[in-house]
């Protein structure tokens, strides 16, 4: 079968999922109670206290660091998939090559990981 034909069901599922999600939202608008608006109801919920300052506070730079490290590991994992698929077959002819190349790749990245670990990038207590 043509590779693209495989994606027709995925596309149909996307349409179904989008219709379902927004359909639910629309149903609740159509059938939901219509209540009054007042000032108290319109304030952000903070357990009955008057909200002070902006809704979005500043955050620890750690969150940024986590996202950055996530990208790097994500790319690493993406490279691991094609390797994993061919690993067993290529062991017969190029065992040294396939084992050595990926161990080197992982080893180089592990150095970076150890560095981040020692620098306390994963230490959320501080």
């Amino acid at each position: 079968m043509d590779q693209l034909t495989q994606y027709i069901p995925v596309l149909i599922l996307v349409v179904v999922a989008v219709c379902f999600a927004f359909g639910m939202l629309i149903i609740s608008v159509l059938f939901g109670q219509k209540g009054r608006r007042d000032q108290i109801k319109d304030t952000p919920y903070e357990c009955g206290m008057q909200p002070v300052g902006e809704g979005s506070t500043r955050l620890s730079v750690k969150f940024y660091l986590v996202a950055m490290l996530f990208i790097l590991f994500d790319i690493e994992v993406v490279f691991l998939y094609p390797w994993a698929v061919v690993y067993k077959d290529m062991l017969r002819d190029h065992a040294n090559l396939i084992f050595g190349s990926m161990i080197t790749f992982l080893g180089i990245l592990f150095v970076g990981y150890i560095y981040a670990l020692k620098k306390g990038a994963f230490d959320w207590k501080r």
Partner: protein
Amino acid sequence: MDPVFAFLALLTTAGAVAAVSLRNLVHCALCLVVAFAGLAALYLQLNAQFIGFAQILVYVGAVAILIVFAILLTRGSEPGNQPILSSSWQAGLGVAVLVLGALGVAVASSFVRYYPVSPAPQPTVRELGEQLMTNYVLPLEVIGLLLTAAMIGAVIIAMHEKQGPR
């Protein structure tokens, strides 16, 4: 032109244009996500399944998330007061037209144009893996080095404040 391609190309371009021209940074980031997703769909349309999903996994699922995080962290999501176009936009436009012209002339006069178009390959993940492990081992290791350098750089930038006195 293939209508599917036309639609995806239009979507991708529109997303990219919106990403650079909108005022609110969160809108921009989400338009960038649309552009990335459009690119991924274009890869899928070219039967490059692995690259297509790698694009979603890495760009839509990771790079764009980092951008959203960075915007939320710096509280820069409210529109600024500067005009969208910089003061030297005429010069920029001129350079862009020149570059486009030079590229166009180069492509038009290239001998590559006279090669017959080879049929599109249908690469499987298996073939990709074999190529990656034989012909492209060195680039793979270089990518490993690059990623490590990026990791160390990110840690140095983000953890910088910890070294100084508080």
